[in-house]
């Protein structure tokens, strides 16, 4: 398939903002060994060079329609894959040097898609419209909480509460080189798209979540009171709200990214904590 290669080569090295760059080991397609490559992520384009400072990339991975997951084959290293759906489609296998690096790349690549960016823009547009519509409204409102655990397509809402974060942080430094799944993959149910790995776009686009699909170990969340904000509009819950068309993704989205992000952080720290304990007891 043809590509406007020349333009892309210029684009790779021009002064447009770089979202992330760094060295990663990349598994060859024919030559099965790993080779060190300098990766540069710009938007949904992941270029790779033989080394930093080279003028021409060796290759490009266009990050559309892909998912990011841990590599089951290389579970004792910080290896992850970028997979594409479809017959004969390949998975790019990449290896980082640390848990942190691996996570950082996985997150960057996961949120690199064009669709994802479109959703962000649509969301901020919506927020801005709302702000413009209602100049100032302030009130305190507590929205009734659900008693069942919310469904999630990624991770699970394991509330470990009471973690000693400082201890966990220092354990992280001395922890053995065992990688953790930043998306807590093995606990996540398969979503409507039949995909297990974390895909923020599919999160957004999923229609009404079946609440009974929530991860079995998730306990009910503690209710949180809504605080005052001058921009919060007290809108009574009407049947109109509930029966909004399924295409209104904002109502159906199960969690905010901030929550998911914070969840990962807690889960990862608690897993470090647990793995330290289990290794101490000779497992």
């Amino acid at each position, binding site marked *: 398939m043809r590509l406007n290669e020349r333009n892309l080569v210029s684009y790779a090295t021009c002064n447009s903002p770089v979202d992330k760059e760094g060295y990663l080991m990349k598994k060859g397609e024919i030559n099965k060994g790993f080779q060190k490559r300098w990766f540069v992520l710009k938007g949904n384009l992941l270029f790779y060079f033989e080394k930093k400072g080279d003028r021409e990339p060796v290759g490009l991975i*266009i990050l559309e329609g892909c998912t990011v997951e841990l590599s089951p084959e290389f579970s004792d290293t910080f290896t992850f894959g970028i997979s594409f759906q479809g017959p004969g489609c390949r998975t790019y296998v990449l290896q980082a040097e640390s848990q942190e690096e691996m996570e950082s790349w996985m997150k*960057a690549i996961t949120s690199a898609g064009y669709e994802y960016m*479109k959703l962000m823009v649509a969301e901020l547009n919506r927020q801005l419209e709302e702000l413009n519509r209602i100049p100032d409204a302030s009130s305190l409102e507590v929205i009734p909480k659900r008693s069942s655990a919310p469904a999630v397509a990624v991770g699970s809402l394991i509330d470990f509460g009471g973690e000693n974060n400082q201890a966990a942080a220092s354990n992280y430094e001395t922890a053995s080189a065992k990688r953790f799944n930043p998306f807590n993959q093995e606990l996540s149910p398969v979503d409507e798209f039949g995909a297990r790995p974390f895909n923020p776009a599919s999160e957004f686009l999923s229609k009404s979540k079946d609440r009974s699909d929530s991860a079995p170990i998730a306990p009910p969340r503690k209710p949180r009171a809504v605080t005052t904000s001058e921009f919060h509009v007290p809108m009574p819950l009407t049947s109109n709200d509930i029966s909004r068309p399924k295409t209104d993704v904002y*109502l159906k989205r199960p969690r905010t990214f901030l929550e998911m992000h914070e969840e990962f952080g807690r889960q990862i720290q608690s897993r470090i904590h647990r793995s330290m304990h289990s290794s101490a007891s000779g497992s």
Partner: protein
Amino acid sequence: MRFNAKEMAALAKEPKDKFDQEGVLWVKEKQEGLFRKGEVYVQRWCRLRGNVLFYFKSKEPTSEPYGAIILERCTVELDLKEEMQFSFQIVFEGDDRVQFFAARTEEERDAWIEVLHIASYECLKMQLESLREQIRNKTGKDPIDDPDPTVLEDNTETGRTNQYSSFGFKFFS
């Protein structure tokens, strides 16, 4: 430069709802063949998806994907020379070769120009930054880094969880 061609070809064939625009366009190309020189306009089935303009082997939607043009650092302009009616051009930064296209009607040309004009990821990201700035000015808070706490509530059927963590954004400057 290698790229994920097979995977892109699979994407090119996805259903209509995945695309922002599609239709037949005349595309000016180098003539294939040993003894022919110069360029000709060829009709191709084209589909735009985000910042990727796919073009197919023929004007038939059932033909195979032939190529892709990734639209970053380019401008879309009217073609004043108009060798072909309803033509327009895409000019890439740092490339003196211009990519010419022609639509079948004025409406189609205008529709394509409009959509290609804002197709780049960079443009989309600038929109995001602009919206972010506007919201910041109105609320005093960054909607991405520092979302409004009133919306950080538990899931309810109508609960609007519409904030984003810095998750994907700490990498954006």
